[in-house]
């Protein structure tokens, strides 16, 4: 099998576990002008942070549940008809030079990937979780760690914010925060005490820790 690994059995023995036969796609494409490419790192403090794509109650098999020892039920689903026009619009915005950084949200959910964008840019970030697009009535945990598909974190220079917002519907694209010079990484939920308040450097030290002294 192509996707397999070895797990420890009940008597300490090695057991080979193979993934079920699954159709996998890897897509690649030629970029016409590399000068138009956008990377994931936040660039400048004062830039606005946007989230594109709805967050749903989809924590099934997530990193968060795995850490808690659960599998869950609501695994993320791909809503092609909803996502496709968003992807095309995002491509248009990137081609027009509207976007300064762009990062897809995947394993770990929004909280993890907002942190990755901040760490990559070595900047602070202030986010209001109550502003993210998504299903009504989600708990803070669901909004932080749900692994819903079809989402992106964008950073944008304030002067281009209006043009960008005009390209998307308010259901899909929302301004959720701002990049800051201070190393504080803050995620608030409305006006309440921050859910997450940590120095970006500390996050980065933890993030790099699995590599030991190798990098």
């Amino acid at each position, binding site marked *: 099998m192509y996707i397999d690994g070895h797990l420890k059995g009940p008597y300490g023995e090695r057991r080979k576990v193979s993934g079920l036969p699954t159709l996998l796609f890897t897509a690649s494409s030629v970029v016409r002008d*590399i*000068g138009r*490419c*956008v*990377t994931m*790192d936040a*660039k*400048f403090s004062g830039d606005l942070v946007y989230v594109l794509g709805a967050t749903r109650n989809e924590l099934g098999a997530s990193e968060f549940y795995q850490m808690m020892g659960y599998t869950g039920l609501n695994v993320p689903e791909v809503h092609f008809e909803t996502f496709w026009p968003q992807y095309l619009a995002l491509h248009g915005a990137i081609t027009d*030079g509207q976007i*300064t*950084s762009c990062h897809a949200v995947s394993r770990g959910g929004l909280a993890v990937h907002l942190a990755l964008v901040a760490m990559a840019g070595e900047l602070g970030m202030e986010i209001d979780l109550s502003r993210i697009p998504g299903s009504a009535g989600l708990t803070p945990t669901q909004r932080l760690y749900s692994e819903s598909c079809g989402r992106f974190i964008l950073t944008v*220079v304030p002067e281009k914010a209006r043009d960008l917002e005009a390209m998307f519907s308010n259901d899909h694209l929302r301004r959720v925060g701002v990049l800051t010079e201070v190393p504080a990484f803050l995620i608030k939920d409305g006006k309440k005490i921050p859910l997450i308040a940590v120095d970006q450097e500390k996050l980065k030290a933890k993030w790099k820790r699995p590599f030991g*002294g*190798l990098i």
Partner: protein
Amino acid sequence: MKQIKALVLTGFGLNCDYETDYALKLAGADSHRIHINELIHGAGGSASVSLGAFQMLVFGGGFSWADDHGAGVLMAAKLRRHLGLELEKFVRDGNLVIGICNGFQALVNLGLLPGFDEIYGERLVAITYNDSGNFIDAWVNLRVNPDTPCVFTKGLSAIELPVRHGEGKLIAERGTVESLFENHQVVMRYAREDGSAAQGEWPYNPNGSDRDIAGICDSTGRVFGLMPHPEAYNHFTNHPDWTKRRERLSRQGQVLPSEKGDGITIFRNAVTYLKEQ
């Protein structure tokens, strides 16, 4: 117009030859990738490639002979055995030699560097395992010695380039290092982002090299060896911060002055020097 012919060695585990060849072409050279064996047999008279037809010889990066017996050791032994005197003549005739990364390691093992007082063949400098004990792949800031006779770095005071090596730490006896400095044969040293000396501090000095030495030349300035890869900064998008630079310029209403990467300057300097001879 005088065409400058450059010979980029290939084979036996060298792996930067295409990129180096490309960088030389961008710099205006008529560059050719030549297998080490072609050159060696050429010296014996049986094949077509002769060093004499070129003005620049390039020892590029890679893992020649899988770094057996130390990086660059077997490459140097093979070339000395087959081309020893011809290589020395090539240098004495006023041609240029550059060794990048594995090529630098080969040049010190061949004794083409440091070449004090144009005496070649003696191994006075070693390039050994990084202090970290690991292969390192990172971008470094380099400060260029303004008084060096090195023809490759003319007009440069600082440059950013990538390093990727497991053995990049230059060591030598104290007297040798002192002589390198006295003769301005220390061409470039690892530095901090603000241009101040790295003073051995990781990651600014990526390998623990003695006195932050990243590249040296011989006493004529026509043989140059360095650990960083100038050929790997051939386009502005090679730099890890290029999207940020583009954005900064765009917000100031400017565009990039050139698509070429700064590393091309080093090859262009060589081509310009040779054209003026």
